[in-house]
């Protein structure tokens, strides 16, 4: 096995439960973003664009979509003879009765020591599949080497009033870290960890082995970083000043998508030398028909628009029929909006048909009754593979999941804050 100077480990096992029905059958990193992409495309593209050609993707929660999406890594040029992309799932090891699940971020890496050792790397880059950003990891590696670090942690300056929501790095003047505080009530600094770490592998390897003897849920933020600080290792904060978005909640997910439709969006997709790659099976152009209106929106391959679309994000193969109106919404792959339907401030997951004349997203902003902490900003969400019958009216903060029929809508209405869930689901 060829030795690698640096390899990446991408933690893609999380559910992202605050994305509600969107992550019912899909791990968060596989959720679509910006029409044609999936969240994991961003760290994967960053890796190859930074010259990192060996990436282990650690999966656990609902990995099917991720496995299909990543395959052997062709879209990211990660199909390699040496290195390339490897999907790492929890497994039973020889001599064990039962295998172990990944119990924490560092524990997940600990379970894959053998995989990493095969490449005998000098450094490992730890990433998560939860964020939208473009970052040159090779510059971070230079910084790590220049400061002779054991660990380098990418940080973002956040407003002080929000700092208590993050893992905060307390640093000296030269950004050397002396303390890490997870969600501090009274933050001393506003440097928030982005969950992106470079470790010198030899040091991390030792720390993982020792910490996993003590903590079965070994975690980078909770255990490994504090342990390294306590051991007197050199840790530095690496400042990142560009676009970085956590798309962890329904509202932030919606916002991050809507930023893309601005005339000059903050996040630039058009960078020739830092492309974001994704898997596309079929890449036809899109067609805009006679009488259609498509404004302040982005649309992906294979879309056909005959109706009106304003301020929206359309994924691949979306069909908007005549007389339909879509506003302030995100439509993922293969969604059909039938004639005369109105969709207002909704997120509609893949493979959906919205019936003729149906109206979605009307009425008052009443939080969802079942999950008020998830659906509360007026956005109605339709889960994947659902059906919305003709002519029904659906309010705000509603959740629709499964093949619903007219009987599920008393008087043809689902009021704001109500849900229709047709299959056993954890919502």
């Amino acid at each position: 096995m060829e030795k690698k100077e640096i390899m990446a480990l991408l933690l893609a096992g999380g559910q992202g439960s605050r994305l509600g029905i969107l992550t019912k059958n899909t791990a968060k990193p596989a959720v679509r973003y910006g029409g044609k992409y999936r969240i994991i495309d961003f760290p994967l593209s960053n890796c190859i664009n930074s010259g990192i050609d060996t990436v282990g993707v650690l999966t656990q929660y609902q990995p099917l979509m991720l496995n299909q999406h990543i395959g052997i890594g062709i879209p990211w040029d990660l199909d390699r003879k040496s290195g390339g992309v490897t999907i790492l799932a929890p497994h039973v090891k020889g001599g064990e009765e039962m295998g172990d699940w990944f119990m924490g971020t560092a524990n997940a890496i600990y379970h894959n020591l053998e995989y990493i050792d095969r490449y005998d790397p000098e450094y490992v880059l730890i990433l998560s599949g939860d964020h939208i950003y473009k970052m040159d990891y090779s510059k971070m590696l230079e910084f790590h080497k220049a400061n002779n670090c054991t660990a380098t942690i990418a940080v973002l300056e956040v407003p002080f009033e929000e700092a208590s929501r993050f893992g905060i790095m307390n640093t000296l003047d030269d950004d050397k870290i002396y303390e890490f505080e997870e969600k501090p009530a009274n933050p001393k600094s506003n440097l928030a960890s982005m969950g992106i770490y470079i470790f010198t592998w030899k040091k991390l390897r030792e720390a993982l082995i020792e910490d996993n003897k003590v903590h079965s849920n070994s975690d980078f933020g909770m255990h490994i970083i504090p342990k390294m600080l306590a051991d007197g290792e050199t840790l530095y904060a690496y400042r990142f000043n560009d676009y970085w978005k956590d798309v962890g909640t329904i509202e932030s997910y919606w916002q991050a998508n809507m930023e893309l439709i601005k005339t000059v969006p903050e996040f630039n997709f058009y960078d020739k030398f830092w492309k974001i790659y994704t898997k596309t099976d079929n890449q036809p152009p899109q067609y805009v028909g006679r009488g259609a209106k498509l404004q302040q929106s982005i649309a992906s391959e294979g879309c056909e628009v005959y109706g009106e679309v304003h301020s929206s994000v359309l994924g691949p193969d979306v069909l908007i029929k005549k007389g339909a109106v879509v506003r302030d919404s995100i439509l993922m792959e293969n969604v059909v909006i039938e004639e005369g339907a109105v969709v207002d401030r909704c997120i509609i997951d893949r493979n959906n048909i919205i019936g003729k004349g149906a109206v979605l997203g009307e009425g008052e902003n009443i939080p969802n009754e079942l999950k008020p902490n998830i659906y509360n900003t007026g956005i109605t969400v339709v889960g994947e593979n659902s059906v919305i019958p003709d002519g029904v009216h659906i309010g705000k903060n509603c959740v629709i999941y499964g093949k619903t029929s007219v009987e599920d809508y008393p008087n043809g209405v689902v009021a704001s804050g109500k849900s229709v869930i047709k299959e056993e689901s954890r919502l």
Partner: protein
Amino acid sequence: MKAVGIILAGGNSEMRLGDLTAFRAAAAMPVGGSYRAIDFPLTSMTASGIGKIAVITQYNSRSLHDHLVSSKWWDLGRKKGGLFVFSPYTSMDNSSWFRGTADSIYQNLTFLQRSNEPYVVIASGDSVYKMNFKKVIEYHVAKGADLTIVYKNIENEDLSKYGVMQMDEDKRVIDFEEKPLEPVGHSVSLGTYVIGREMLIDLLETIIAEGRYDFVRDIVIRLRKKLKIYGYEFDGYWRSAGASISEYYRTNMDFLDKDVRDLFTKQEPYIDTKPKDEPPAKYNMNADVEDSLIGSGTIVNGRVEHSVLFRRTFIGDRAVIKNSILMEGCYIGNDCVVENAILDKNVVVTEGKSVIGLADTPLVVKKNDVI
């Protein structure tokens, strides 16, 4: 029924397509907003189970090589079989351009000799269609044919640029005329053939030794009585993107028709092409697009009507694009008018300028030109 494929992409089409092929082979002509002409025969072959394909190039092959070099997009990056791209080369005893279509296959005869598939499917690289070659091969076998020519009945059109064939009731070809002044019938050869591999090797060795180099003239026409040549009727969509500028224009405009578009983009097998990883297209505040095909990565601010925009084009504020084809990377500034035009790759129309052609003869603007 196993077969290898040969795609003839070497024709010099400068006469027919003018400036559009100054930098590219006809087989590399951009089609339908996302594709190149060769994607259509290539996908037809792979979807018909043909896993070993030779593309024979000659003129301006750079763009074609660039398109084909990583053959994995057609699932042809294989140890067994895969994609072979042949260009003319020099050797100890031979240094020549291909002297004709038959010669271009003959000079790469090892490709056929090192295969063991019983049949060969030959197709031209600049036609737009979707064909199931399995059916053609089955037909070829059932007829006991030496050579099967795929044809299409084309009516109400000038056939003088095509090969026109006559058949008896059994579909056996009795006459074949290349570019006839007075065509008899309307059965047009699509330049697509099925032939036994060993028979093809024998025929090529025989005619080349006699100093004959052209597949149509020296095999199809000259040997039409000696060989059992049959016609196979294809009644699907077919157009030669490389036949002329007006045919090229029509081929692209055909994609605005739902049936044609659906055939290639919504019905499997989908047409495979090299991915360019462009972001979604963007329609800004005052965008006004109607009856048009829009490629990925395009940004529209003005009006686009009845046009085909390839990838990564930019349309400025208040600009008007009508009845036009804009290839990849075109930039149209504010307040421009582009009508009845074909803009080759990376053409820039600066603010306020107009490019207007005639309805029946679109104006062609050369690659990289700035207006």
